[in-house]
């Protein structure tokens, strides 16, 4: 039997191409396309009273200028509400180009097309838009106060209000009856995905073939295809959408269709020319999505050992100016807040609020970092209140392995019950305790104190629902050259699917990963898919590849048995080392590529493989299909739950309040690991973003709704000098939901970071009784907290 590939830290197949500079990202394509640029609103809330394009008309190279008035049919209508929900009672979605009103800085008002981007921007600059300004609603406080409205017809700025209870009694009664009670008010600031490559769209209309080909830097090409077809009134089979190499996504590129994904193809059809738009960094800040911003009020009732009896959480969520992606983020916060704990009676209520700011949609973690912050701050507050060890309080509340599968009694984001399939949280907590050095920390603290340094330690744990449905699929084909081609509808933005999916296919077919080529995100190759988000790609697509490759293996055995003759039965055969052979008599074998030739009864000898095959009897008979290929789908019954715990040691400067991370440790359980090297990389990247969110990154709007730090100069993404060395330890509790035992790993690293860092800072500052209730935290904010000023 050939050596298995799943579980090995193989090098990535896609890297040599990317490293040589031969990647094909969106802006590397369409060198001769026309360029689009947009006039975007400079104000947060206004009525548009006039658009004067006169001055732009004599700009060299100008091809077209479009405003909302020019848009025909469905393109003029609001963009779709992707994920409706019964509690989302007041949904508003944006237009492709503003229809008389703008609701945030950056909203697209005019589209300009010219022969190159420089000229398109020249023209855009000369277009005069007159705005009659309206008072903006900025920030959760103003949205809650509702003295001003974002959308006149939506009372209280409330898009949705939603309540869930876990069926374990009345939370308020449980809290009231508990021996101890606490209330916490928390807040998390806005941040954003900020992939290094912004969005971009290139469209080509083939008028002869009446086919539209769209390249877009998206996390879901299949859904963009359906959206474009619907908006442009084309049969879906006339639309092809391809995600080329994509320079990071982290959530922002799952939203679709973005206005530009409709407008650029429409312009290409209208003009009969290729059109390309590439988002610049400022555009990305002011017109792509943000996340995180929430306020929370937590009431908790517990006993003297720190065990929770009841938990009631109220969340105010800033959803920005529109809700095209529904209310997924606050749903995730309210459900995943529970983490690895049993909380007694639970009630959560969220209010999703409009503000005159960029839309809010999932950014890696998708509401979980906020939920974990709430839960873990609560654990720390309980420990402080009772004078107990912070880890002891957490351990007192853990779900035990023997309680798995554990039903949390809520409805998860996928509409299915929130049932944890597997996990061993006590072991996880023991591992993080050891890894971060919890037990020896008091000695470490004393040694530091002797040098006049103050250090602190913190731990935070999470559970993450991953691999949600409804499905993914894959097509696996054995070519007559022996090459295996795997096509799947998920997209890839750096997660290494070209390697991990090849590992899964190689094992099913007994070939090397070098023999497998993986295609993702190309609707010409695979049409049915959901997309890459929510830590779902390897779980859903990986299992689909296994299903499809398994069918191919069965077919190969069937054909090989017939070809080998002599009474050999398919069940006696196995696939290994590129051949189909008899299990007990490996000399009786036939090459897999020869089987591929035999699978097509068209027996012209185009090549050597075909000639070799002519010695065998015809193997595909009536009722079978030609081709050694198959399509397979995986449809999970529900999500599978990964988990982890982070431990961090920080140092805070006694004078300047500078915050430095000394040690960062991760215990991570994502079930069966396909490629440990890649999973490790995902964890590192997530932690770096988590540290950004804990200490540096915040999107800042002023009172007028201007995004004042819309550049990498002012929005502080950590450099290498801000990210510590990360120590990881892995554990495996195989998924109880899918055949390969996989759980997702993409978002894990970012989820508990703010909570762990907050805990460590508070611990370092315990002499000064600093209480951290809001993240991120800067040195100057810590400095203010030390002086007893409330951090608001």
């Amino acid at each position, binding site marked *: 039997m050939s050596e298995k590939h799943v579980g090995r830290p193989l090098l990535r197949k896609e890297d040599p191409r990317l490293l040589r500079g031969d990647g094909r990202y969106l*802006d590397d394509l369409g060198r001769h396309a026309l360029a689009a640029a947009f006039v975007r609103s400079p104000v947060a809330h206004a009525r548009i009273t006039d658009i004067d394009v006169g001055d732009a008309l004599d*700009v060299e190279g100008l091809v077209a200028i479009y405003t909302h008035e020019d848009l025909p049919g469905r393109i003029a209508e609001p963009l779709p509400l992707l994920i409706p929900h019964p509690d989302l009672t007041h949904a508003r979605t944006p237009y492709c180009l503003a229809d008389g009103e703008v609701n945030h800085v950056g909203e697209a008002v005019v589209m300009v097309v010219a022969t190159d981007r420089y000229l398109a921007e020249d023209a855009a600059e000369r277009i005069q838009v007159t705005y009659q300004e309206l008072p903006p609603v900025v920030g959760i406080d103003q949205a809650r106060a509702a003295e001003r409205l974002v959308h006149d017809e939506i009372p209280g700025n409330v898009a949705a209000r939603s309540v869930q209870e876990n069926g374990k009694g009345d939370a308020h009664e449980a809290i009231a009856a508990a021996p101890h009670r606490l209330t916490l008010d928390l807040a998390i600031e806005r941040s954003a995905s900020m992939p290094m490559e912004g969005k971009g769209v290139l469209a080509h209309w083939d008028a002869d073939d009446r086919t539209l080909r769209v390249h877009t830097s998206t996390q879901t090409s299949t859904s963009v295809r359906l959206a474009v077809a619907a908006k442009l009134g084309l049969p879906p089979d006339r639309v092809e959408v391809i995600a080329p190499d994509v*320079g990071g996504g982290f959530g922002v590129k799952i939203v679709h269709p973005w206005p530009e994904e409709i407008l650029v193809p429409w312009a290409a059809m209208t003009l009969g020319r290729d059109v390309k738009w590439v988002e610049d960094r400022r555009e990305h800040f002011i017109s792509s999505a943000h996340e995180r911003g929430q306020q929370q009020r937590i009431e908790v009732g517990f006993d003297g050992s720190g065990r929770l009896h009841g938990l009631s959480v109220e969340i105010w969520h800033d959803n920005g100016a529109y809700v095209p992606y529904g209310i997924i983020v606050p749903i995730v916060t309210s459900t995943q807040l529970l983490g690895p704990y049993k909380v007694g009676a639970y009630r959560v209520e969220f209010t999703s609020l409009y503000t005159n700011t960029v839309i809010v949609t999932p950014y890696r973690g998708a509401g979980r970092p906020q939920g974990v912050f709430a839960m873990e701050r609560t654990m720390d507050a309980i420990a402080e209140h009772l004078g107990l060890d912070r880890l002891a309080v957490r351990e007192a509340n853990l779900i035990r392995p023997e309680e798995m599968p554990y039903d949390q009694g809520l409805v998860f984001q996928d509409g299915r019950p929130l049932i944890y399939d597997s996990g061993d949280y006590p072991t996880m907590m023991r591992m993080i305790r050891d890894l971060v050095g919890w037990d020896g920390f008091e000695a470490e603290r004393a040694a530091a104190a002797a040098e006049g340094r103050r250090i602190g330690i913190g731990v935070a744990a999470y559970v993450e629902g991953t691999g949600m449905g409804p499905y993914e699929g894959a097509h696996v084909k054995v070519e007559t050259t022996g090459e295996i081609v795997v096509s799947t509808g998920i997209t890839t933005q*750096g997660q290494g699917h070209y390697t991990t999916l090849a590992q899964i296919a190689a094992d099913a077919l007994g070939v090397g990963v070098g023999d497998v080529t993986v295609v993702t995100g190309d609707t010409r190759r695979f049409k049915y898919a959901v997309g890459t988000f929510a830590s779902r790609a390897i779980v859903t697509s990986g299992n689909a590849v296994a299903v499809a490759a398994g069918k191919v293996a069965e077919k190969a055995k069937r054909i090989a048995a017939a070809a080998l003759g002599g009474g050999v039965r398919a069940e006696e055969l196995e696939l290994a080392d590129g051949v189909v052979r008899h299990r007990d008599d490996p000399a009786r074998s036939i090459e897999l590529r020869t089987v591929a030739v035999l699978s097509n009864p068209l027996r012209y000898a185009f090549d050597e493989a075909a000639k070799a095959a002519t010695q065998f009897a015809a193997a595909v008979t009536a009722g079978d299909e030609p081709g050694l290929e198959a399509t397979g789908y995986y449809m999970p019954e529900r999500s599978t739950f990964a988990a982890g715990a982070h431990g961090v040691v920080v140092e805070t400067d006694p004078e300047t309040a500078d915050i430095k991370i000394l040690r960062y440790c991760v215990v991570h359980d994502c079930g069966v690991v396909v490629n440990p090297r890649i999973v490790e990389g995902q964890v590192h990247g997530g932690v*770096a973003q988590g540290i950004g969110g804990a200490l540096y990154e915040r999107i800042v709007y002023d009172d007028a709704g201007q995004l004042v730090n819309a550049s990498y100069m002012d929005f502080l993404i950590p*450099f290498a*000098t801000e990210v510590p060395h990360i120590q990881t330890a892995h554990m495996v509790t195989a998924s109880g939901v899918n055949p390969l035992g996989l759980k997702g790993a993409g978002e894990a690293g970012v989820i508990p970071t703010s909570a762990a860092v907050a805990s460590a800072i508070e611990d370092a500052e315990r002499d000064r009784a600093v209480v951290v209730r809001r993240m991120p935290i800067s040195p100057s904010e810590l400095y203010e907290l030390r002086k007893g000023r409330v951090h608001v």
Partner: protein
Amino acid sequence: MTEQRHQVTVAVNGVARRAEVPARRLLADFLRADLGLTGTHLGCEHGVCGACTVLLDGAPVRSCLMFAVSADGHDVTTVEGCREPAGDLGPVQQAFLECHGLQCGFCTPGFITTITAYLEENPKPTEEEAREAIGGNLCRCTGYQNIVAAVLRAAELKREREAPHE
């Protein structure tokens, strides 16, 4: 109005390349659009992320902050020029492959060029120096740990490859 164009001659990866460009054409756009060398990426176009880093006469510069006309008469090395002469991966590229120093690969060209120049100055960096050396480039995917490892591995590979063969 028609923009005035200027003759620019730049030795890119050892080959003299000529084009007529407007004065405001960025070096990055010149490389990508005029010459078709799309390995150089633009992450911010305001000089912070370093994705667009190329080597001008061997020293790293941000090609989003420089006009093509200012590069006239100079040597430019891009990520495409960091391969071995026969086209195999250069030592820095090979090290990134071995250390999983890239995920989406968008920031990578800027790291490759920056590190290539750095190892000329400091062929045997410590881990701390390696981290410092990449401290001016942003990566949103990797958390940098594997890039730091790649700097150290690249130094090793470079020494091996440059060692006189017995």
